[in-house]
């Protein structure tokens, strides 16, 4: 599944966000327990994106927020956000909200 610019996505509730030794991690739970061979470590951008996706957003909305938050160039922010969206969709971590 590839990212659709017009669709709003939301993070699945099947991950518990934890702080471990100063690092942000996601623990897959419920039916997602077997999707990863362990937990997922988030860097600051991916942690920001994951938190943003607690409510439904399109990729453009998230990329704009990333650019604002980190003072990044919009094109670069979109590239980074797309990379993470692709990864999350591949691992069944997002739901389409329409």
């Amino acid at each position, binding site marked *: 599944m590839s990212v659709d610019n017009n669709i709003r996505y939301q993070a699945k509730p099947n991950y518990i966000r*934890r702080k471990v*030794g100063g690092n942000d991690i996601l623990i897959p*739970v*419920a039916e997602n*327990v*077997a999707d990863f061979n362990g*937990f997922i470590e988030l860097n600051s951008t991916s942690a920001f994106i994951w938190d943003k996706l607690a409510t439904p957003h399109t990729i453009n909305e998230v990329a704009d927020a990333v650019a604002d938050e980190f003072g990044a160039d919009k094109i670069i922010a979109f590239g980074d956000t797309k990379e993470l969206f692709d990864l999350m969709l591949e691992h069944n971590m997002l739901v389409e909200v329409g």
Partner: protein
Amino acid sequence: MNTLTNAPERCPLNATFELTVRCNLKCKMCLFRHDDKENAEIIRNELTAEQWAGFAREAAEMGTVGVLITGGEPLLRPDFCEIYESIYRQGFMISLYTNATLVTPEIMELLRKYPPHKIGISIYGASPETYHKVCGNAAAFEKMLEGSRLLCTLPSVTEFRTTIIKDNFCDSRAIEKLVKENFGERHSVTQTRMVMKAVRGACADVESCRLSPQDNVKLSLQKSIDILRERIGDGFDENNVRIRQENLKKNADCSSAVNHRLSLFGCSGGMTAFAVTWEGKLQACQTLGAFSTDAVELGLKKAWETFPLSVKLPEPNKKCLNCEMSDLCQSCYALRYAETGNLEDCPEYACRDCEVMKSFCL
């Protein structure tokens, strides 16, 4: 004298929560089960569901990532569902060890909602007869199969685990076959390498039922010999097979690949891992009961922080320091303590095991 100016960093990444030392089976080699006569007293002193929930909360705050829920038989606790859910909801990588004979619809409903990341199922024989001999309960064999079938429908990773003693020695290959036939080729059976004496007041007379060092070593080489036979046929004498010793790790370390040169016990125990016993003591691991702090009185965090102060180790044993077989040796502080009742003597069973293993080495 060289003195360390800083203590090596400790981080409680992995926890073992021992919900009970009671069990519905009576395995002859059980490390932890107490005599049933003690059950009433044990039940009075077991931590409550609320206390486990509190420890789970504290562990999450302390940065614990992995929690192993075990026993005895954890599913035996009538409040298992409540305890399990409260631990799970904190967000850990959860492992659950069970003998799979007490899997009720209520437990399956819970586990479907909150599947563990890993389930360790213990299997002690390939027939009701062997279950009768090893676990004192023939009917448990069918129950284990039934329970395992249900547990295998969960998205969790499943690991079958066994311990081989005299009574199920002849079943060791049949157990592996049974698991593959019933649960799929991808499953193999993990075997305890060294069966140690029971710990912390557990009642099993392990010495009388465990394998001789000769059979124990043979058993640990059996899988490799079977693979060899598959590849090159029967044209070799299995008693003359020799092993080349490469990268054999000193000291069986149960849970972590961290460098433990500066550690409490030469392993992850008390450094990156800890166990909480059924009555609320914090130990380095489930088996090493020589040192503990009281997590009920101090709270989990303080019990973890102050644990090293409870550790007083004797001078290393000279025989071990100069031992040429130490690379092969399965001994660790927990095994030493279980086998000899102190921390300095040589566990004779481990030494004899080593000698046999060495005779197979090039």
